[in-house]
């Protein structure tokens, strides 16, 4: 009986310790974006299968009803709803995707008072050496929700510092 109580106590201490000392919500969100940057960066030409695998992993960071609304100054407009459409978009681009890197140069996170929602603003640098080299800076706003201890992206949209 003593051993069971001791085990329960140790479990309780471990749980409380993790809640107090474990990674906070902001750290978890930053890690999510690091993983997204890594998954979105293509170091070499990839097969359709490899790209599909990357898209699958990236899609897991989005809610099932996620919305992505991109409108870039280059005239590129793209709206996607749901994880399946994210996967389909990547599949449609397929091998046309050039090797390049994606970096979240700045990331500002505002946690909601309920600790279950958050808004993040990021400056994203997309760079490729293909086709003579090309670089674009995009400003994005993300709405995130926390479910079962895990943060996921509910909405992604482009924002512009300069207003016409």
């Amino acid at each position: 009986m003593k051993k069971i109580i001791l085990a329960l106590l140790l479990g309780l201490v471990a749980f409380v310790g993790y809640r107090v000392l474990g990674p906070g919500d902001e750290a978890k969100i930053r890690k999510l974006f690091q993983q997204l940057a890594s998954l979105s960066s293509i170091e070499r030409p990839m097969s359709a299968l490899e790209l599909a695998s990357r898209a699958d992993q990236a899609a897991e960071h989005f809610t099932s009803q996620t919305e992505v609304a991109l409108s870039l100054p280059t005239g590129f407009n793209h709206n996607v709803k749901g994880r399946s459409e994210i996967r389909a978009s990547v599949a449609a681009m397929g091998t046309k995707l050039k090797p390049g890197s994606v970096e979240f140069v700045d990331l500002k996170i505002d946690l909601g008072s309920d600790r279950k929602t958050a808004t993040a603003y990021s400056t994203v640098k997309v760079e490729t050496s293909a086709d003579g080299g090309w670089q674009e800076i995009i400003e994005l706003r993300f709405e995130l929700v926390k479910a079962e201890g895990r943060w996921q992206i509910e909405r992604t949209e482009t924002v512009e510092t300069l207003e016409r």
Partner: protein
Amino acid sequence: MALIPLVAALVCLLPVRKEDDSLTLVFKFSYALSKPARGDLVAISLLAGDNAVFLKRVVALPKETIEIRKGIVHLNGRPLDEPADRRNPGWSMSKTLVGDEEYYVIGDDRQQPIELHRMGRIHFSKIIGKALW
């Protein structure tokens, strides 16, 4: 196009890599005692921070009306004297009123179509400082 500061931690001078890969320095306290003037090249912080910044030229001041007709910027109805290489005859924009504490900024490279060029109104609080060259 935004530009990347090299060492954002420097207190008063922010080294910034320009689009042509050359470097400039931005003096962070340029506007501590005065306000931006027309023609100033200024660094502008983005919504998420200032590890990447815009480097744009101040064209219109607060409360002015800006309009572009065949590449020529008009302020309060009068043409602005700018170098010829900043005039793109394909550019046109209807009248826009610049608000209090706002500035209208445009980049120097105006070769691309106006829709693709990042330009517009910016609040004074987003201006980091003046580029020294």
